[in-house]
């Protein structure tokens, strides 16, 4: 009986708290076994709690806090699929990190995952903002955890941008909640096809601020460099743990709040295209993957903007599939980083000779992100492409997405595995990755295959289940879709081979590629240098004027208040009487005309 009551209570807790409790355990764990139990057991407990919620689509746990009604746990089909992705990422990240005994990273990683999970299950704006801020702090710790100068500076930049995003989100949530008279998500908008989505009006001031905050977290164009700056500066495990949460949480928030908001279509389409060009030039393969993340998030943002049941399903499916295959690619590059201390393409090549398992996993991840049929990426991206193709007046957007699909094959499908593991022989013979890393890579590869080969169970978890099943039966493995995708991939690979054969494929060269971040990393200091001379001159003038004025005042004060000064002189009594009379006259006038 007591056990039943305990279980009843356990399933009413926001699953994010299980990961945060596991983080506390990891922080104090003295032996490897306890640490491993917490790292893997926490996500497993969260998964169990998530799969057995007492009610779906309703506020499970309501609290009154400082006069505000909060809903700490509100599961529905949209939060469930994102939550599943976060729990999977947390468990796989935990296994991947077992070789590295760093309490800071372990605990920060679990808090980060727990906060992101808590945010997707939050039923009100206040709880959501709290979890999002906690995620920001934990993620910054993961960047700092590399304990190097560049990582420290990248961490500060990351934290600054994330805090700005958090402040925008907080201010927007406060304004919007006050304006609407409630902070509860269920009461902010009505149901759309049985789901509370697209509930915030982006035309209101609060809505605009929320969109701006979420946009920064989703790495919208011009504010995307926090992603490409931070990820390559982390440890080999840091990028794996960082990659799934912030951007995916932002995708969830966009779907929940702004589904069907048309400008997102173009923002998303732009996000898919421009990272392709940067990824082609980039030498650091972890940075290539960061640009690739930007590109894949673009597909999801675009799908959310389209706002049909198919596109929302596609965005949710792609978010989870992306967590799996991008995590896998970051894992393989993490293994290279661990063994060689670098992921710069110009210093790599031929690593398949001694790291064949890692190379194999990288190939699975690369094929998956390229949307090779019967792998995870195809299962999710086909939905988005079909939704975009079906949309009225969407030809240009659809062509942009198609171009980006070929671009993905270039940077993540070919460049990453080819430059690291094949290409020319760098002569480096590193040891294969540790067993725990290989296990995590193996499990991720397995997931890519299972989602791709047996998508039925995966589609059953999507927000609009019936529409997903219909797509599975009619479209996913249709001859035309399969042939078109295979054509795109085959000819794109052929183009690579032709360009390589004629030696016009750009060689990987050391260097950094300047991007928007130039504005604050170079432009800011340069502006400071330009303004320094006039500001110093101005300062000298102001200082001189101020000094003269102060000296004048001192001199005048001495003359007035000194022993022989004006105020010390003896005045006749009649003079004082006249002054008193004047003052009384003034008071009388004021009181008369008041």
């Amino acid at each position, binding site marked *: 009986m007591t056990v039943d009551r305990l279980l009843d209570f356990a399933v009413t807790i926001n699953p994010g708290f299980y990961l945060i409790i596991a983080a506390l355990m990891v922080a104090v764990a003295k032996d490897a076994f306890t640490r491993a139990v917490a790292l893997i057991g926490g996500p497993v407990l969260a998964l169990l709690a998530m799969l057995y919620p007492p009610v779906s689509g309703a506020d499970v746990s309501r609290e009154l806090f400082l006069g505000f009604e909060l809903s700490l746990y509100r599961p529905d089909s949209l939060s469930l699929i994102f939550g599943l992705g976060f729990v999977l990422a947390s468990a796989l990240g935990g296994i991947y990190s077992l070789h590295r005994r760093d309490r800071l990273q372990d605990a920060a990683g679990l808090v980060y995952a727990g906060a992101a999970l808590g945010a997707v299950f939050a039923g009100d704006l206040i709880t959501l903002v709290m979890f999002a801020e906690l995620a920001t702090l934990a993620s910054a710790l993961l960047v700092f955890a590399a304990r190097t100068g*560049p990582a420290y500076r990248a961490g500060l930049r990351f934290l600054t941008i994330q805090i700005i995003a958090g402040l925008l989100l907080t201010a927007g949530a406060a304004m919007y909640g006050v304006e609407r008279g409630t902070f509860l998500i269920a009461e902010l908008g009505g149901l759309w096809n049985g789901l509370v989505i697209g509930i915030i009006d982006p035309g209101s001031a609060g809505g605009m601020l929320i969109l701006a905050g979420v946009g920064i977290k989703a790495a919208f164009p011009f504010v995307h460099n926090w992603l490409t700056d931070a990820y390559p500066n982390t440890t080999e495990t840091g990028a794996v743990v960082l990659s799934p949460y912030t951007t995916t949480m932002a995708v969830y928030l966009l779907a929940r709040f702004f589904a069907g908001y048309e400008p997102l279509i173009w923002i998303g389409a732009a996000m898919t295209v421009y990272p392709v060009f940067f990824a082609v030039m980039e030498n650091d393969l972890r940075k290539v993957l960061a640009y690739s993340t930007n590109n894949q998030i673009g597909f999801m943002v675009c799908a959310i903007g389209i706002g049909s049941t198919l596109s929302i399903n596609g965005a949710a499916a792609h978010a989870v599939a992306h967590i799996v295959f991008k995590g896998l690619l970051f894992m393989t590059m993490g293994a290279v980083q661990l063994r060689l201390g670098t992921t710069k393409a110009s210093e790599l090549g031929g690593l*398949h*000779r001694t790291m064949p398992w890692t190379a194999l996993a990288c190939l699975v991840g690369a094929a998956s992100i390229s949307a090779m049929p019967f792998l995870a990426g195809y299962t999710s991206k086909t939905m988005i492409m079909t939704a975009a193709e079906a949309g009225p007046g969407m030809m240009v957007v659809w062509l942009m997405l198609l171009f980006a699909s070929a671009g993905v094959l270039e940077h993540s499908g070919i460049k990453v595995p080819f430059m690291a593991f094949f290409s020319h022989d760098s002569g480096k013979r590193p040891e294969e990755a540790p067993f725990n890393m290989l296990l995590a890579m193996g499990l991720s590869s397995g997931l890519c295959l299972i989602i791709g080969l047996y998508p039925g169970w995966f589609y059953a978890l999507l927000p609009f289940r019936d529409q997903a099943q219909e797509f599975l039966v009619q479209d996913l493995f249709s*001859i035309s879709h399969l042939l078109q995708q295979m*054509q*795109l991939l085959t000819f794109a690979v052929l183009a690579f081979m032709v360009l390589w054969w004629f030696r016009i494929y*750009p060689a990987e060269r050391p260097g950094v590629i300047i991007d928007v971040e130039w504005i604050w990393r170079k432009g800011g200091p340069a502006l400071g240098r330009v303004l320094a001379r006039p500001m110093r001159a101005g300062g000298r003038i102001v200082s001189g004027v101020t000094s003269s004025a102060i000296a004048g005042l001192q001199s005048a004060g001495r003359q007035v208040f000194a022993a022989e000064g004006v105020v010390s002189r003896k005045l006749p009594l009649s003079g004082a009487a006249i002054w008193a009379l004047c003052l009384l006259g003034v008071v009388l006038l004021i009181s008369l005309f008041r």
Partner: protein
Amino acid sequence: MSEDKQNPTPVEPAQLGVPGEHPLSVLLFSWMRGKLFFRIFMAVLAALGAVLIALEFVLSHRAVTSILNVPGFFGIFGFVAFSIAVLSGWPLGKLLRRPEDYYETRSGEAGRDR
């Protein structure tokens, strides 16, 4: 017993891979190292592409209402889009690539601007 059998010519064990190479690498990837691999693979891809376009002609029953529905469109688009993405790397690289220590040096010291 003949002299040959008493002192057999030492036979080197067959070299499957480079020294220190993982057996799995030999099993999975050594076939890629043949001199003709690149040409054969390119020919196979071209043949596969041709077969895919032919199959689209035969199997796909979508009405040709726009250029997007023309058989082979995806193949040609993939080839052109990939080439554009890659070849853009030349001019853009010249325009945007800077030395490694442009923002900060490898040792973590302040960058060139300080």
